[in-house]
């Protein structure tokens, strides 16, 4: 039974009954209800337990600021934790649970903490669990269990999310009266407009307003205006969409909840969408938050924001209590008192201002509402629901602050401590906030980006001001984008001049504020006046430090309710003004957003691009497992039936060395270099002599960073006097091109050189082994491939098997080998031709693993595996590549004392003395494993394989002063602590003279 539901009114549809469960109990609400309004309608008072003290808590607010009604919605894979019941629309079949309170919110075992609350002051965890250090692991487990709010789902999210980039002239955050006026003005001018609001329907405060516009209900104006906006083709209207982040260059993010408000069975398509908006102009119309008042036991269920009470009455037709007291220090809550009376409640007003309210006071008195001016609520009776309030006459600054007190019987306390504009987005954008001495709140200061704040978010409390300011901002934004502003009629709202607010940051307590019943500032984090005072006493002066010590402003609400009151208490303790204390930093997100919407569709197969070569489908058909290199998927090995990696690689290595192997090397980076200054340019970036290279010849080259460290390597070919072709490592292709371009464009613009990436255009097929020449001859090659006419390290254009190719005689295996560069459109055909023709030589396709073994047998390094960004050419025995006749990038760094240190780690070969153990890559090498720990380390293993051709394991390692230590016995320490004896040898294990590749 919805015992608190009013018979009439509200924006709910009583014909659509929705069934839902809250903490296991079956309840009913109506279409249009928020979860909070439905709970209040059903008379649910306790909705959760507090964070630290486990005190029973009820609903306080009606929007993003709600600190207590934090819910787990749904179950299983699609559940969402930590949603504010005030922002969740009820749907049929909803399952909602409080995130705090065990075993139930009405009986919470941890509530015992409340009894010891004196000991649980600010910094309790820091102070108590520091020692003994060894016990921290135990403490942490227990603290973790009792901390936090909801639970993340344990299985993968089955829902889909997406991103949407959008551009507009004017983005409006918030569709209350000011935002809607701004949209109307900007829209009529012809600008491209996006207006977003976090609620399910546009209207903001008008949805719960009794105001009359031109003598008609304001909601009539709202309906008409929204219909007009929807008809314009240039306005994107986004309800259920929270503008949560405001970044540089007017980049704004919006989280749109597309299907969360539906029953799970009816959710189709994208669940949430992230809008990434680049706006020329932004209008911030986020509204304002009503501040709570800080008095003893102000956290008891039944104590609510006055504006929230009005919202429940008007928007949801729910009366949260029968006997109400309104406690305020400003005029706005008087309307709540009148609203309550009209809804059938008894009501009294307690106004801290000795002079009481302005004109509205007469309306209240005329209606028969008793008003106690100059009075304050000092304490609250009741535990799980308030039963009464103690009210005293306030004596101002006198030592005895309260003259006498009386008990007023009530079940609802509607409080208003004034209003704080939601300056969050303005602040995120980089704008400062300015303290207003008349409004007693921070208002947005000067904007640092192209934005304007309007309405109550700019400290304008009167509807007429909000509408006017919205109109002006909409026109202003449009005209800044080059559109002509237009005349829009602003409805007449009638005069409602207010008497000024009188600040009341902390209601004086009858006892010492450090020992009186708890006066809560931040409900969600259980931060009380006494905690803030303690923090200041212990030396915290900066508000950011106080925040972190006390947890003030943490959690889902991020201090939307409590921060200003908290800062005022800090200011009081420090004897400073509030603006001197300042606010903490506002950061995205305004309210929590899901990981799902941030990830968008970048999950699963789309998480990372998969790059494939033109021959990929053949590798797939051959059932090759793939190794991910950069984003490329390269065939790792080609197993025959029943073979594992080891067996397949041994077979591939032997076949290649003994007869013929073939590999897809298409992933190599390929760069075309042309221009009259090509030689000069390459001289400056490569270490060897370029000018001496003859056309038609190739050279191995290395690139150094400015620090002199090896950055990339590859083969370069001179195709013409002014024309070169470079290869890079697979992973370095993009970065090397950028590196070269950046030197050309920023440092040496005088050089006439053009660079073009050919990486994807050419596929590269390596044909490797003693029979490689015979294979090419067999399929028909129009150039002479013998040693004299086409020697090792040569390049020629050729017709191969009837197709034009670039043929390179280069080798990364030490064997006689050719690399065929071919238009990728023809690559698969060429590969198939070579495979077919190669059958007589038992042609064996091999992958990256065999490539690694073959090159390691030859002692060829792989940049990034045998080097790590701290390795010089000298360290890997490449000083022969460093020209003495010229300067090149990185050269000067090679003469730094550290670069010429004699004990630098140098590349060497390693053999396991037992001739059996294949050493794990990455393990450390020591001279004497029996030394006390930590044992000094003198190197590590960078590459290690079993060599089928040699019949024993081989390894490459970087060892201090390694080249001078050949023959020395050292020890490799494995991760399990065991030790393997190793001998330092030459890094070239196979065909040291290089006869095979020159054949």
């Amino acid at each position, binding site marked *: 039974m919805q015992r608190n539901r009013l018979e009439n009114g509200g924006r709910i549809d009583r014909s659509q009954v929705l069934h839902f469960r809250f903490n296991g109990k079956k309840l009913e609400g109506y279409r249009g209800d928020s979860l909070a309004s439905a709970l209040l309608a059903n008379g649910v008072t306790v909705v959760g337990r507090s964070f630290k003290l486990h005190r029973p808590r009820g609903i306080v607010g009606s929007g993003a600021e709600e600190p207590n009604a934090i819910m787990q919605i749904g179950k299983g894979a699609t559940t969402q934790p930590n949603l504010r019941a005030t922002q969740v629309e009820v749907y049929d079949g909803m399952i909602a649970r409080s995130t705090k309170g065990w075993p139930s919110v009405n009986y919470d075992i941890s509530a015992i903490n409340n009894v010891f609350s004196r000991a649980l002051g600010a910094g309790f965890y820091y102070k108590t669990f520091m020692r003994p250090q060894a016990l921290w692991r135990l403490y942490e487990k227990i603290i973790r269990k009792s901390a936090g709010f909801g639970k993340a789902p344990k299985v993968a999210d089955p829902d889909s999310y*997406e*991103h*949407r*980039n*959008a*551009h507009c002239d004017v983005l409006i955050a918030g569709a209350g009266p000011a935002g809607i006026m701004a949209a109307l003005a900007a829209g009529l001018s012809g600008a*491209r407009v996006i207006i977003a609001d976090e609620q399910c329907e546009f209207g903001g405060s008008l949805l719960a307003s009794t105001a009359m516009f031109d003598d008609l209900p304001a909601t009539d104006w709202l309906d008409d205006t929204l219909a007009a906006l929807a008809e314009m083709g240039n306005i994107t209207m986004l309800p259920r969409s929270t503008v949560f982040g405001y970044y540089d260059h007017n980049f704004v993010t919006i989280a749109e909840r597309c299907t969360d408000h539906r029953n799970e069975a009816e959710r189709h398509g994208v669940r949430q969408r992230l809008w*990434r908006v*680049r706006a020329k102009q932004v209008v911030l119309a986020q509204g304002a938050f009503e501040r709570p008042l800080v008095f003893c036991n102000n956290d008891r269920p039944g104590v609510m924001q006055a504006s929230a009470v009005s919202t429940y009455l008007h928007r949801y037709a729910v009366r949260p209590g029968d006997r109400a007291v309104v406690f305020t220090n400003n005029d706005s809550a008087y309307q709540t008192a009148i609203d309550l009376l009209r809804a059938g409640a008894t009501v009294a007003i307690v106004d801290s201002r000795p002079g009481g309210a302005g004109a509205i006071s007469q309306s209240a008195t005329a209606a028969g509402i008793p008003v106690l001016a100059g009075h304050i609520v000092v304490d609250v009776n009741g535990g799980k629901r308030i039963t009464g309030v103690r009210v005293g006459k306030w004596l101002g600054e006198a030592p005895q602050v309260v003259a006498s007190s009386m008990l007023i019987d009530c079940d609802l306390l509607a409080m208003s401590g004034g209003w704080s504009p939601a300056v969050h987005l303005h602040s995120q954008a980089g704008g400062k906030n300015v303290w207003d001495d008349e409004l007693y709140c921070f208002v947005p200061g000067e904007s640092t980006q192209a934005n304007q704040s309007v309405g109550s978010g700019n400290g304008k409390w009167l509807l007429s001001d909000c509408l006017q300011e919205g109109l002006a901002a909409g026109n202003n934004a449009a005209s800044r984008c080059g559109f002509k502003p237009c005349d829009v009629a602003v409805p007449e709202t009638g005069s409602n001049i207010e008497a000024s607010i009188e600040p009341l940051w902390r209601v004086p307590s009858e006892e010492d504020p450090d020992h009186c019943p708890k006066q809560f500032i931040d409900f969600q984090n259980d931060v009380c006046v006494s905690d803030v005072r303690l923090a200041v006493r212990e030396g915290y002066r900066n508000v950011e430090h106080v925040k972190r010590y006390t947890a003030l402003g943490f959690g889902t609400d991020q201090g939307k309710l409590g921060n200003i009151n908290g800062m005022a208490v800090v200011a009081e303790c420090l004897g400073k003004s509030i603006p001197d204390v300042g606010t903490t930093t506002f950061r995205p997100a305004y309210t929590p957003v899901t990981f799902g919407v941030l990830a968008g*569709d*970048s999950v699963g*197969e*789309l998480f*990372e*691009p*998969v*790059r*494939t*070569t*033109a021959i*990929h489908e053949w590798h797939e058909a051959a059932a090759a497992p793939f190794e991910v290199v950069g984003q*490329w998927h390269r065939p790792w090995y080609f197993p025959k039936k029943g073979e594992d990696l080891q067996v397949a690689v041994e077979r591939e290595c032997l076949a290649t060395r003994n007869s013929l192997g073939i590999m897809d090397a298409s992933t190599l980076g390929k760069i*075309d270099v*042309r*221009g*009259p200054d090509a030689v000069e340019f390459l001289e400056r970036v490569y270490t060897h002599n370029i000018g001496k290279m003859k056309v038609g010849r190739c050279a191995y080259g290395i690139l150094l960073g400015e620090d002199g460290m090896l950055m990339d390597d590859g083969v370069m070919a001179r195709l013409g006097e002014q024309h070169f072709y470079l290869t890079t490592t697979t992973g370095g292709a993009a970065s090397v091109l950028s590196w070269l371009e950046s030197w050309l464009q920023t440092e040496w613009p005088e050089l*006439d050189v*053009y660079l*073009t990436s*050919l*990486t*994807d*255009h*050419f*596929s590269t097929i390596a044909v490797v082994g003693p029979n490689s020449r015979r294979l090419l001859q067999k399929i028909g090659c129009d150039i002479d491939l013998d040693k004299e006419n086409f020697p090792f390290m040569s390049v020629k254009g050729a017709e191969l098997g009837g197709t034009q190719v670039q043929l390179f005689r280069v080798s990364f295996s030490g064997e006689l080998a050719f690399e065929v560069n*071919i*238009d*990728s*459109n*023809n*690559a698969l055909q060429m590969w198939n031709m070579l495979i077919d023709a190669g059958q007589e030589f038992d042609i064996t396709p091999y992958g990256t693993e065999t490539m690694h073994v073959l090159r390691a047998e030859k002692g060829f390094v792989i940049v990034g595996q045998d080097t790590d960004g701290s390795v010089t050419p000298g360290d890997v025995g490449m000083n022969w590549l460093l020209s003495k006749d010229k300067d090149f990038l990185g050269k000067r760094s090679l003469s730094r004392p550290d670069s010429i240190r004699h004990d630098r780690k140098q590349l060497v070969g390693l053999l396991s003395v037992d001739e059996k153990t294949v050493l794990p890559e990455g393990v450390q090498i020591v001279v004497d494993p029996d030394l006390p720990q930590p044992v000094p380390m003198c190197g590590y293993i960078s590459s290690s394989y079993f060599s089928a051709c040699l019949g024993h394991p081989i390894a490459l390692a970087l060892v201090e002063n390694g080249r001078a230590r050949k023959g020395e016995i050292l020890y490799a320490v494995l991760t399990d602590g065991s030790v393997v004896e190793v001998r330092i040898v030459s890094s070239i294990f196979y065909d040291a003279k290089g006869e095979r590749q020159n054949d």
Partner: protein
Amino acid sequence: MTEVKRIDLGHINLRGDAGDDRFADGVEAALGLTLPVDPNTLSESDHRMYWLGPDEWQVVADRKNVPVLLKKLEDALVDQHVSINDLSGGQVTLHLAGADVPELLAKACTLDLHPSVFGVGDCAQSGLAKANVLIGYIDVAPVYEIIVRRSFSEYLLRWLRQNSHFQVGTASS
């Protein structure tokens, strides 16, 4: 409804000095179209020529015409500091047609593709999902030409397939 077609086209990358009349004239003579010098625009005759940068263009043409066009360009620009490279093997061309295309692309491309900003004849190099692409608005129908590196093409098609309900067709132009 978005229609996605994979079109078999040829591609030539051209570098040169736009400020040199000999270059502009040579290109015009060889290709029969005006060298686009306004940033992010394309010009069109039997083939399309995309502006990629102040000194870089891409010619998109019938694949079978590429050898002839390469020869014509080389002859027309002989003795100039230029770079002419056949990239036909490295590029995949997609044509996306339908009124929803801008909205589809907006899911993963940060460009403003509103027709008032990005009209017919406009082009841009940008990211689409996690691939680099060249986008050209080539027909008011609307048809957008998307050119992506071959190695990223399967990934991009997968992204398109997941984000729009379409069949990938193939067509030769």
